């Protein structure tokens, strides 16, 4: 009897599961959410996922979706694991996925060759392969609003304008995975050209919370500035170790994945002075965020702790959702369709305009710099700004710092050529 019950329940579950895999209704837009709320980086992945989800949920609740079509989201847990990320991709691509936001450089690198085949674009917002900024080589991958290489060049510009780079020693501490190693080619290229010495401090995954050796090496090498490409628990530990070894924190700059509330709140007063990059607004003082609070968070439809709404990573996830919704609107406008496909979405990503006027219109005045979709430039060259930890919160300390386009562009072009060099079947596009 018990066995029969189990068999019956399993059959019903399989039948129901099968019915759930059908393509979504005609007036729906399907957005898969590759997120990570678990695993060693779950603490940082969670607020990002909440911001992404809540903005699109707000559009559904307030406006009925985008352009008359409701957005359907399906969250798939990757645990920041490339293999799981690919499994999520394979499990959701057949459901009418419009775009993938992998939230991991490792997963992105796996999806880049798949996207032209399945005709579903990949939006690697603030991570991924820097060379993907070259739209003619990577028609299906987008790196708005800026790439790692551009970010690094903006950070170097800041250092240059605060005492100069020439003759200085720059330390680079990084998580020793694809993401952390991504800016190294740029650093190695520009170091001799700009006249600074480079010192590398890799941090293996299992040493994220045991960095005393790296910081002893920092003390030995005596760099003038430190730059960090960290993630997860590595960030807080690095800032604590820096303070412990008496490295001046106002000369320690983290990239935009190393400078969130999730990183510095546990450090508190000890992290005062630490600087980080960012490209999205901080706080809830924006009409769109007030609507998110009203329609989603207060209505009990968010997984976010209300106190984290407006934090760095929540707002960055929200900004990612803004880029997605604006590209959908552009695609709907170009094609005249309400329900679009992945191919239409690609067009949208190449043609949306998110300038200050549009940001004000959608309730995010001054939230970020201008970004404009483009066939050739899939990066947008949006400048990053720097913020500083005051012991309890982040404070913006610079205006957007434009990247060194003259330095970065040739490197991006060369990297794009190198990427396709061993892929004879790779198809680019020609832009007007």
């Amino acid at each position, binding site marked *: 009897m018990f066995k029969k019950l189990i068999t019956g329940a399993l059959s019903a579950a399989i039948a129901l599961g099968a019915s759930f895999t059908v393509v979504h209704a005609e007036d729906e837009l399907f957005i898969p959410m590759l997120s990570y*709320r*678990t*695993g*060693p*980086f*779950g*603490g940082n*992945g*969670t607020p990002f996922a909440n911001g992404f989800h809540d903005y699109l949920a707000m559009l559904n609740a307030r406006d009925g979706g985008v352009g008359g079509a409701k957005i359907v989201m399906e969250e798939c847990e990757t645990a920041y694991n490339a293999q799981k990320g690919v499994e999520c991709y394979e499990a959701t691509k057949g459901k009418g996925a419009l775009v993938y936001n992998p939230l991991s450089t490792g997963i992105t690198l796996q999806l880049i060759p798949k996207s032209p085949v399945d005709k579903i674009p990949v939006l690697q917002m603030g991570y991924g392969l820097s060379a993907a900024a070259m739209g003619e080589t990577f028609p299906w991958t987008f790196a708005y609003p800026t790439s790692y290489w551009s970010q690094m060049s903006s950070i170097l510009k800041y250092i240059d304008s605060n005492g100069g780079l020439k003759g200085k020693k720059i330390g680079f501490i990084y998580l*020793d995975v694809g993401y952390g190693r991504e800016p190294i080619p740029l650093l190695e290229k520009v170091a001799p050209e700009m006249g600074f010495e480079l010192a*590398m*401090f*890799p941090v*293996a*995954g*299992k*040493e*994220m*919370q*045991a*960095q*005393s*050796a790296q910081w*002893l*090496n920092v*003390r*030995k090498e005596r760099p003038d500035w430190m730059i960090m490409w960290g993630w*997860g*628990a*590595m960030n*807080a*530990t690095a800032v*604590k*170790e820096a303070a*412990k*070894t*008496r490295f001046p924190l106002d000369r320690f700059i983290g990239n935009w994945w190393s400078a969130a509330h*999730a*990183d510095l*709140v*546990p*450090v*508190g007063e000890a992290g005062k002075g630490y600087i980080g990059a960012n490209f999205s607004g901080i706080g809830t003082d924006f009409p769109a965020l007030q609507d998110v609070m009203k329609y989603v968070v207060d209505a009990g439809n968010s997984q976010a702790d209300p106190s984290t709404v407006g934090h760095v990573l929540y707002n960055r996830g929200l900004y990612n959702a803004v880029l997605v919704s604006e590209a959908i609107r552009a695609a709907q406008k170009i094609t005249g369709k309400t329900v679009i496909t992945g191919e239409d979405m690609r067009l949208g990503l190449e043609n949306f305009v998110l300038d200050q006027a549009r940001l004000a219109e959608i309730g995010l005045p001054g939230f970020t710099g201008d970004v404009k979709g483009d066939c050739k430039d899939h990066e947008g060259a949006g400048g990053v700004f720097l913020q500083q930890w005051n012991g309890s919160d982040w404070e913006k300390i610079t205006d957007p710092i434009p990247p060194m386009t003259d330095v970065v562009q040739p490197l991006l072009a060369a990297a794009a050529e190198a990427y396709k060099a061993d892929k004879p079947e790779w198809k680019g596009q020609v832009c007007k």
Partner: protein
Amino acid sequence: MDGLIYSILGDPFVQMWQMPDFFIQVIWEGFVSGILYALIALGFVLIFKASGIFNFAQGIMVVFSGLTLVGLHALGVPAFVALLMTIVVMYGLAFGIERLVLRNLVNQPDIILFMATIGLTNILIGGGQWIFGSETKSMITTELLIPTGSSVWEPGGGLVIFQHIDIAAAVIAALLIVSLALFFSKTKVGRALRAVADDHQASLSVGISLNQIWVITWFAAGIVALVAGIMWGARSDVSFSLQIIALKALPVLVLGGFTSVPGAIVGGLIIGVGEKLFEIYWGPLLGSGVEGWFAYVIALVFLLFRPQGLFGEKIIERV
């Protein structure tokens, strides 16, 4: 060739001589790391000694105990009450593991028990994230009266920084080890535990309850995990990535032996100091980042001469 030989056999020692304050700092940092590795290794040893199980869940037990402590305090429970409640939770965990997992797997091959601890790891990860969330949390260091700040020593114009928390970690670890040694040698339960470690069948025949001993062992490992969680958490916060730290204890176990408490301590110190010295003075020759694997080199070199580990028991099986 001469340059290479000098880089290996000359330059590191010249650096040590020229910057003695930095050399002392490296030794101190290695010593503190070694003590913390030893704390984690101790948890492995306790369980392996009593039940022959390699407890894959030891790393997550460190995180789980730390999160329970911080989580209870966040609910408004005073720090020391939260500490006592966490000890009770760790006892409940030990009791639950014995009742739900170990008791049903008596006489099963070791690999089955090992796999069960992998399952336990995932349950504690999932359950822990469900209960406490996955954000990084601060350890309640000052609330537990653990000293913070640092003292500076300036030998000959140099600079050596001693973090008070590191000194506290060394003292607390020493007290824990002495307590465990006294518990094993002076108490009835401790002697029963040693008897079980020597021979399960013989222990049963003289009326020692294997189940009770397992609960006590896992509880002791839970207490060690809690101490490790507090000390590691105080140094670098409490997050789920802390469970990976358990991997750092593996070369300590290889070196010290899986059944030896002194082995865990001495092994931890050798690995801690050895890897720091090699990383700082010889690491640049190999491009840095050698700390992770060099610990295994130290352990394997020792194994060439003592296959049972530094203090492990020599196993002789007669056919």
